[in-house]
């Protein structure tokens, strides 16, 4: 799938069960699935169309991956404005999910770095839309359509191209500070007091530890190093960028391997292994940003039953709810192998955009009996204080609960009704949640 003509051809055939565009399919749920209908693989559309080194802007096709953008542009002194925990996502997907990264508290989410995007809508037209009216984008940049598309999970049309503001960097190395905190309170306090000093920040939480140690964590925060901060041997080629060798996990793991005992042991080790306090440690981009990308098919360790990811925000002022979430999880006997906590900054006008001011907690939980009821219960805690769940991660929230989480859902539906009155763009996610 590449050019507009291809997309239009599928559009013409898609009456009935509709279609949705897919990038690298890294959403954890059903965002890029469409039972009975069409799914457009956009990864063939991966060209770079224009580069403006002075303004640090690139114009690309939607199917290009952040991995490729880094390979091409880190050596030229530009980093992607926002990267999630994997670089194997496309620009189109990054906009559709309005992804965030470790720098949300200072840089916002991906869509805030998009100058404009070209959207092929249900009528077959290509519309260039932007975050605000802008004479450079033509008579009508249709900001409403832009902000319905940012975070809109592909339901407004097919994103074909975008112009993205990159982040200028002097080196490909990050300077990282590590802090170990003994419990949740000390973590939240440390984040509140000093997060603004760092461009990037995230905490790994031990979700199995109970009692006084509940919420103990390893906090890593950093920023890109300036050239003069590199050791002499690296200063000659400060923007050198290479990725770690990729190992792949074989498909041999039994169900239930990740249970409370193994995860407890792992977490203990992970916590002990981290330095209590370390400053200005030099780390490469893959090590700091994408540790899991160095292991292919890591999801296989969960065995054939798999896992779900649960990610929610809790607004500032409701730290007690963060505590209750952790208590419920650590007390439930469900082992969360990977749990991260981050402080979000301001949100954006995206109608279904996930980030909003507060704490975001993300957990991987193996699928076992009783998990559905537990997560439904956690949803209630979250929605009661004005928090919400992340569509790119979700595969199980109840539609009526989702509706309470996103007060601008009606605005989103109105834009969709305007540009796609027949509901041509749809997905399993859209059907499940009645978007």
């Amino acid at each position, binding site marked *: 799938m590449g050019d507009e003509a291809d997309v239009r051809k599928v559009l013409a055939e898609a009456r009935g069960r509709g279609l949705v565009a897919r990038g690298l399919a890294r959403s954890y749920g059903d965002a890029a699935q469409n039972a009975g209908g069409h799914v457009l693989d956009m990864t063939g559309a991966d060209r770079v169309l224009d580069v403006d080194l002075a303004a640090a802007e690139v114009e690309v096709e939607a199917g290009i991956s952040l991995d490729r953008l880094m390979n091409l542009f880190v050596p030229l002194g530009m980093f992607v404005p926002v990267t999630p925990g994997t670089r194997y996502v496309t620009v189109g997907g990054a906009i559709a999910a309005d992804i965030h990264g470790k720098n949300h508290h200072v840089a916002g989410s991906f869509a805030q770095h998009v100058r404009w995007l070209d959207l092929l809508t249900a009528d077959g037209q290509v519309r260039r839309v932007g975050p605000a009216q802008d004479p450079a984008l033509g008579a009508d940049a249709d900001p409403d359509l832009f902000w319905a598309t940012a975070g809109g999970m592909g339901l407004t049309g097919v994103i074909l191209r975008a112009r993205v503001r990159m982040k200028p960097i002097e080196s490909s190395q990050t300077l990282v500070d590590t802090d170990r905190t003994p419990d949740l309170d000390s973590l939240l306090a440390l984040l509140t007091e000093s997060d603004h000093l760092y461009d990037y920040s995230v905490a790994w939480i031990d979700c199995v530890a109970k009692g006084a140690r509940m919420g103990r964590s390893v906090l890593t925060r950093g920023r890109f190093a300036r050239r003069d901060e590199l050791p002499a041997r690296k200063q000659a080629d400060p923007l050198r960028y290479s990725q770690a060798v990729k190992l792949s996990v074989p498909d041999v793991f039994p169900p239930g391997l990740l249970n409370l005992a193994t995860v407890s042991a792992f977490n203990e080790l992970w916590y002990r292994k981290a330095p209590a306090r370390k400053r200005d440690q030099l780390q490469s981009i893959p090590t700091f940003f994408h540790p899991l990308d160095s292991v292919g098919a890591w999801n296989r360790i969960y065995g054939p039953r798999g896992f779900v990811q649960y990610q929610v925000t809790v607004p500032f002022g409701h730290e007690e709810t963060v505590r209750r979430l952790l208590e419920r999880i650590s007390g439930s006997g469900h082992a969360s192998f990977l749990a991260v906590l981050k402080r979000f900054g301001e949100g954006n006008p995206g109608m279904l955009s996930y980030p909003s001011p507060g704490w975001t907690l993300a957990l991987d939980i193996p699928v076992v009996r009783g998990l*559905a009821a537990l997560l439904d219960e956690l949803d209630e805690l979250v929605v009661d204080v004005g928090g919400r769940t992340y569509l790119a991660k979700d*595969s*199980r929230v109840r539609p009526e609960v989702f509706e309470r989480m996103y007060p601008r859902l009606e605005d989103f539906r109105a834009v969709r009704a305007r540009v796609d009155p027949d509901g041509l763009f749809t997905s399993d996610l859209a059907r499940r949640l009645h978007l």
Partner: protein
Amino acid sequence: MIDALGSVGSLLLVGGTSDIAVATARRYLQERPLRVVVAARDSDRRSAVVEELRTAGGTVEVVDFDADDPASPARMVAAATAGGDVDVALVAFGQLGDQSQLARDADAVAALAQVNYVAPVVVGTVLAERMRRQGHGTIVALSSVAGERARASNFVYGSTKAGMDAFFSGLADSLVGSGASVLVVRPGFVRSKMTEGLPPAPLATTPEAVAEAIVTGVRKGRHTVWVPGAMRWVMSGLRHAPRAIFRKLPL
């Protein structure tokens, strides 16, 4: 759409006033609110079921369905899916019939064959077509152990169940790769309004136990389940019992 943790979003009950259908809806509603479409003849019993399921937290829709009317299945499925996909469709209607009457009354045999065989397989065909188009969904067909080997005491009923069981088992295979699937449920004697007044057979079970087996079977993607589970081995033995012995068993 059945979600990643096996929760069902919409349930269609064909023969929605049967005890097993109601028990299945109640069982699902214990987990989560969901859309339930009750397809049945207009009756006081239907109104009562709708009320009961609403109280239990369901978003209940009502659709007319009459197993005696050949045009009813297509109309019923169209109406039931107008409001969205159906994740699980339970084909739960059927009659036991009175064997002593059936032995002499050809019209009664034809009527029972219509309700227990013709109507279910027509419903199955229409549902399968819809689910093929959806690309997902599970049809749950309520068969019976009576269909595994017909016996003198209720062979007309048994033969209709044998036919519908064969149909849905074959349908299951024909749907492989489409995203849709079929679960055939073979209960033994169920204490329900259908068997009211009859002496319970060994291994008698309840609508709630059948509902539990349906929910578990759908979640695990099973193709055939017996209720209770031990029935599988009992029937396996009975199927192979020499006729001279089988005929004399007090079944």
